[in-house]
Each structure stands twice: as C-alpha cells, then as structure tokens.
C-alpha cells in the first residue's frame, strides 16, 4: 500500500506557485490521510495485542466459570463463581501463594543488596577494575536453563560437589525447613532447603542484571558529593549510608518493583530443578501450579482462576510498594 504511506505532506507543492492556503476540502483530506496512516502504522502491533493479550485476558475470567471434569472428552460444566471461591480458599492455593511470597522475599532483597555491594566495590577508580565489572556482569549471559542445569547438577548427590558433605536426599529434594523452629505458625513460613537452593540459583543468575542496574544508578551519584563528604570527615561506611544510598534509592525502588514482578513469574528454575513442585510441594510457586494444572491435570478452569489470582496478587503488591516504599525514596526534585 504505497499511496498513504508515501503521501507527500505538501501535495503538488512544486507545481503550485501560489501561496494561498489550501482549500478546506484539501485540508480535511490531508487530515484524513494522516489519521489513516496513523492507524495503519499501529495496526500490526494492535492486532497482535488484540489476539494475544486482550482477548485472552478477558476470556480468562470467563474460563474460570467452567470446571473441567476429571475425565477428558466430557463437556465442561458452568459453575459460575463457585470455582473461584473453591480454588481461592483451597489449602493448595494458599500454600502455593505462601511459597511464592517466601521465594520473592528471599530473592528480591538479597539480589538487590548483592547488586549494590558489587556495584559499589566495582565503582572505585582502581586499575583494571573494568575486568571485575565484566566478571560481575557475566551472569547476564547465563539463561535460566543454563543456570538451572549448572546448579542442578552441582547439587546432585551423585555427581555434584557436595558428595563428600551430604548423602541422600539431595538438597533439591529436601523438604525440611532450613531453620528448625518448633512453633508451627512460624515454621510454616520458613523456606524449605529445596526452595532455598532454587532461590540461590535465581539470585546467582540475576546477579549480573542487578549489578548492571545498580552500577547505572551509581553513575547518577556525582563524584563531587563523595568528595565533599570525604572532606567533611565521613569515612567509607558513613559516606555509603548517608550519601550514596539515599541517592541510589530511586534505582533501588525500581529494582524492587520490577524484581518483585519477575520473582512472582519465576518458572523455569522450578521446572528444571524441582519438577512437579518439589518435595512436598515446597517449591510449588503459583506459576508452576498453573502449569501443573494445565499440563498434567488438564484443568483449564482451575488454571484460569489461579492465573487471575496471580495477576491480582502482583498488582496488589505493586500498589503496596508504590504506596509505602516510594515514600522513602528521595528524588532530587
């Protein structure tokens, strides 16, 4: 379609000698052509969005109304909101939610803290520090599968590194909480050994990204402020705490928000390290639960409800973060 896209903005300018304004009809024509071009350019993206994002999004709510029978081939029953209620109050769901939240609570703050540590250390003017920066960012090149296969094999009791230290069960099959607390209420919130191992893998894989992000944030802290603080008598720790950290807070906030969203969508590591939701389902994060229902139980309806729950929780968490955390961020203006 060459005509609209090729539309010369001043039609016939070369041949028209007069400077009189274009007649109304022509101007209207031009506006229509411009609008048409605009819609045309948006069309490809919009089509993709419509088919693969909007339509599924709304259809998902609809799917939640139907329960899938246990045997294939039978039609689905309309159960309305009952399925929503059943699924969302089931202990399976609540456990999965708990696992997801615990996982996020471990990986996000630790990941950010380590990123800051690496970024601050690599920010100094030392000779050859560029090599260290390259090392620290290297895990960006590891994909989910690479990191998971590496750690999975390293932690396996047969061929891993921990053979001398531990026998069966493998760390990744260990459902025990990492800290043994007898109080059942607290105990249910302690991550299992398996979950911790998956968390460590995730943190390691994200280190490169976290490092790059925090380094970029550090660039925004002017060197002069550090110098002024040094002359004012502040030692390295005080300089970090009173000058660097506050000025880094916008970046940290961004990392928290985006990091939490990604943490809630973790899937690959779980599937590769602890298939079927791990020992006693202690690594059954929501995304895995959804996958499990889809792939193995073939329960579309339930999966749909769970997906909505995941969306809701993520949205809620983001809103909470904006409400409460952003207050402590010191923007310059």
């Amino acid at each position, binding site marked *: 379609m060459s005509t609209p896209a090729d539309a*010369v903005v001043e039609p016939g300018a070369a041949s028209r000698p007069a400077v009189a304004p274009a007649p109304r009809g022509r101007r209207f024509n031009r506006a229509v052509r411009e609008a048409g071009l*605009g819609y045309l*350019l948006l069309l*490809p993206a919009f089509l993709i969005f419509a088919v693969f994002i909007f339509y*599924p999004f709304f259809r*998902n709510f609809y799917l939640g109304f139907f329960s899938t029978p246990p045997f294939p081939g039978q039609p689905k029953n309309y159960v309305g909101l009952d399925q929503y209620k059943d699924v969302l109050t089931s202990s399976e769901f609540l456990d999965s939610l708990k696992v997801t939240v615990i996982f996020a609570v471990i990986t996000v703050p630790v990941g950010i803290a380590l990123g800051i540590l690496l970024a601050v250390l690599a920010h100094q003017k030392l000779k050859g520090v560029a090599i260290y920066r390259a090392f620290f960012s290297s895990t960006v090149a590891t994909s989910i599968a690479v990191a998971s296969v590496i750690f999975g094999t390293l932690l396996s009791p047969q061929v891993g590194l921990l053979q001398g230290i531990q026998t069966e069960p493998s760390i990744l099959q260990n459902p025990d909480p990492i800290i043994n607390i007898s109080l059942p209420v607290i105990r249910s919130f302690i991550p299992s050994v398996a979950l911790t191992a998956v968390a460590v893998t995730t943190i390691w894989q994200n280190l490169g990204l976290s490092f790059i992000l925090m380094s970029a944030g550090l660039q925004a802290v002017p060197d002069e402020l550090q110098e002024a603080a040094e002359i004012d008598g502040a030692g390295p720790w005080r300089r970090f705490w009173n000058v660097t950290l506050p000025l880094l807070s916008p970046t940290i906030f961004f990392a928290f928000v985006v990091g939490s969203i990604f943490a*809630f*969508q973790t899937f*690959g590591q779980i599937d590769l390290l602890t298939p079927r939701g791990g020992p006693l389902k202690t690594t059954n994060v929501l995304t895995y639960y959804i996958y499990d229902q889809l792939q193995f139980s073939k329960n579309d309806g339930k999966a749909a409800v769970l997906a909505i729950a995941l*969306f809701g929780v993520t949205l809620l968490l983001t809103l909470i973060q904006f409400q409460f955390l952003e207050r402590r961020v010191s923007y310059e203006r």
Partner: protein
Amino acid sequence: MSVEPIALRGTELSGKAGTEVEAARPGKRGRRVRIFGRYVALSVLAFVVLFPIYITIVNSLLQPSQIAAKSPTFFPTSPQWHTYSDAWTDGHLASYLRNSFIQTGLIVAGQLVTSILAGYAFAFLRFPFKRTLFVVFLATLMVPFEITIITNLQTVSNTLNVYDNLGNTLGTFAALAVPFLATGFGAFLLRQTFLQLPKDLQDAAKLDGYGHLRFLTRVAVPLARPTIAALAVFSFLSAWNQYLWPLLVTRDDQLRTVQIGLKQLRATNIDQVNVTFAGTVLAFIPLVILLLIFQKQLVRGLTAGAVKG
C-alpha cells in the same frame, strides 16, 4: 550578622589545637594496604560469582568417573574434548541453538518493526483517540503472561496445528514467535526517542518535500539508532530466555529451543554428565559473545526503564 571576629582553631570542638589527628594512617604503607584490601575483596567476589561457570567448564572436560568421584577435580588433566562434539551432534545442541536463533530473531525483528512503526505514529502523526490508544499500549505491559497462556495455547493449537502435526516446522516457529511480535515497552521507548528529535528536522523535511515514509527511513530511524539497538538487545535477552511458552508449544525435539533443549540433554545424559556440561557451555557462549560486543546497548536497554522512572 555579628561583628566580632570568630574564634577559629583550637576551640573546644575537637580539642585538636596543635595535636595530631589520631585517625591519620601512618605512612604510605597504610594506603597500599587499603588498596590491596580492595583488590582482595573484588577478587573474592569475582571468584564466588564465576565459580559455577568455572566448574562447569572444568567438568565438561572431565570423565564421568572423575565427576562422580567423591573428591572434586578442579583442573582437567586429560581434557575430554569429545564432549563438545557429542553435545553438538548427538545432543542436538546444534539444532537447539539454531532454533533459538530463529525464534529469537523473528521476535526481535517483529518487535523492532512494530515498535518503530507504532512509536512513529504516536510521535509524529495526529489522529483521534491517540492518547487512549497509547494508554492501551502501555496497559499491555501490566498483563502477566500466565493469564494469557491458557487461551493462547488454544488459539495456537487450533490454528497452527502444533500438537497433531509433529513435523510442522513453520507452524511451530509461528507459534513461538507470533504472540510476541509486538511490545508496549518498545512502542513507548521509540515514541520517547522520536519525540526527542529536534522539531527543526521535521520542518526541514516537510520543506524538502519528504513524505512520511522517507522521513521515517531516512531521518528518524537512523537518528534513533542507539535506542533501537538497546531495544534489540533487550528483546533478544527476553526472547532467548523464554521458557514456559516454548515448553508448552514445542513437542518435536528437533524444534526445541535451547532452554528446553538443555532439559532434554540433561535427561538423556544422566550417566554422561560431562556432555550435559559441555552443552551448557555451548549454550552460554553465543550470549557471552553477543553481550561482549553489545555491552553499551545492553546497559542502555536494561536501564531505560530505571532512568526514565
């Protein structure tokens, strides 16, 4: 403002009239020690970060018996180079990598094109409901993947026949790429970049009789090259790292992407762990090379959101 001269030095503040300030480090040795300490800290951390990769490379060159032995070997004395060729051919790493490149390439190309077009429309054209449409584009970023997969799976299997027809290469790659050919993030990024181009350029182009197509291809895109490169790197990383969708959509082992392929490799090489490790290294290398070349763009792309807030 008071008028008397202010007493300085030797006041009660710190009692340092004429006395040495204790915190001064003695001599040049103090400074050297500090700098050395910093290198030590950096090296320790670098070691911790790189250790898994190092061990992987080492293990890929050991014999299975060495790997399974109780005490770990840290340096391969007789490197088993064959593991790499094994992973490449028998392990299908070649196919997996090829598939990943095709899948990722398609997605990156699609996202670049749609984002440039959409960004251009939002930045330079006027049409009704422009603002609403832009908000809609941005809203797509809020919808998490898990909500859409259920329906998308059905859509894809119905139209592209991926499940029934195992040899359906075209269908599989279409299924892998098409849902991701557009991104709200890209449209947003390009719009911002185009908006930052000097207005004079557009005016000059109008006077020169440039149509929109020519302005887009000859002026706007070349000037937006850094952002486009950053977006490309960012899209590349996201697409390459996809796991859940390729897992659900590819059945034929020949068509698996490298993420899923590695899972398969590990399963079929339980007794040949070194081959699995070799496969992992092979999957790791292309990204390392790419990221070494495109470091700057990588940083830009990853921090585009952070800097703009």
